């Protein structure tokens, strides 16, 4: 995962300092765990929610 996060960061123009890598990896992993159900959800037939609409 460390290499993947490094590559993602570099693709966005960010070179993560080595002394922050553990922290960023931990947060990224926690976020990935949270978002896995969304990646696995069936969203076919749904369009993106309009940014500024509540209904």
């Amino acid at each position, binding site marked *: 995962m460390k290499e993947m*996060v490094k590559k*993602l*960061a570099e693709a*966005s123009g*960010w070179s993560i300092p080595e002394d*922050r890598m553990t*922290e*960023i990896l931990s*947060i*990224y992993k926690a*976020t990935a765990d*949270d*978002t*896995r*159900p*969304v*990646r696995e*959800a069936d*969203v076919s037939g*749904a*369009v*993106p*929610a309009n*940014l*500024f*609409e*509540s*209904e």
Partner: protein
Amino acid sequence: MTDQDLKKLTLGSAAVLIRKKEIKPTELTEAVLHRIGRLNDHMRAFITVMADRAMDQARVAESGLVRNTNVGVLHGVPMSLKDLFDTNGVRTTAGAKVFTDRIPTEDATVVRKVQDAGAVIVGKANLHEAAFGVTTINPHFGTARNPWNPDHISGGSSGGSAAAVALSLGFGSLGSDTGGSIRIPASICGVVGLKPTYGRCSLRGVVPLSWSMDHPCPIARTVEDVAILLEAMSGHDPLDPSSRDTPVPHYLEALTGNLRGLRIGIPTTYFFESLEPEVESALKDALKAFQKLGATIHEVQLKTSTLQRGIWSQIACPEAYSFHERYLETQGEQYGADVRGRIEVGRLLLSIDYVRAQRARTLMKEEMKQVLKSVDVIVTPTIPVPPPRIDAPTIQQGNVRVPVGVALTRFTRHFNLTGQPCISVPCGFTQDGLPLGMQIAGRPFDEATVLRAAHAYEQEAQWNCTVEM
């Protein structure tokens, strides 16, 4: 005016006494400022106290009463603003060190509205840094402490607003809610906090966390107070693209006390799982109170609730990063450790993840729309646990220990994603004397029904939410 006198007043009762000229705005403001001076060093409800300006506003309000000029609903009433709301000429920090010297030159729209209604602004309330957290343990401006037990958090991110209101350091406050940031501190501090429908109140001049889920909110000691504040701050703002051009009702007229025929939906899975026993017991008693008032209880299903955490993160983190990007690149070290990494990870999430999350969000909204055809409101606990201690980074939730932030946002974020109105009202206390709260959510732009249900329950339950401090 003594502290005891202050604590007996609500926003509504103070406004009436001022209009009747039985209390002077200067007398009331002075008493509030004196109490702030006595308590704020320890309780840290405020980042900036606006004593001189508040007294000037109070004097203007007083002379307005003498001349019988047009008196607004908040005329002469002292209140506070979460330090996320731009205030002309007053530093507005968003709780972040990087904005310590940021002084806006224009009021946020909702700030202008409450001031036009006559409010006296006593100060800028403390908050979790960048509004991105739920404890208001702020490394730069101090920790906002719980008025019921200062060893416990005030919640967040509008923790300072909630603490100020509970302590009678002002009779209401403006806060915000992106993932629970008005309802969580309202529940934890034993006060009432309403997240209106997305677009009900203007976001112009509010420092953003996540544009598509930010909501400006009223918070006060009673439902009536929140209704008064909501009406004052609501309305279309053509300069805010999120603002909806929908009429603003007279919300006080909704507080009829009549719940006969109201259908209450209880999502028994997810929202009623892994509850601490005291929370569960309080909710059961609250449902009995609703039934006594004539409402009916119906079990409903919100199957998408298990996705809320992931959807919220995939939307909020990139949006938050987008706002903070230029500050993080040049002054990243000024951000607290708690917040910096969580915002920065937003730049690592893929655009396809953001789009997928927004599509899943549509499914949530569609599901809620269907559910709200068969019931009028949804009731859930606001948080699954009692108010956490300041020194506890994790808390027991069922059989596991989880980070405090995970526990506290479990039930609130769903209603940010759907954009519907949702209020937190006190529904009891733990054996240790800490407040418990209940959420009531309704249809978009039907704050009236939400307020009606909350008010009727509040009047029936009669919880004594006056702090000893």
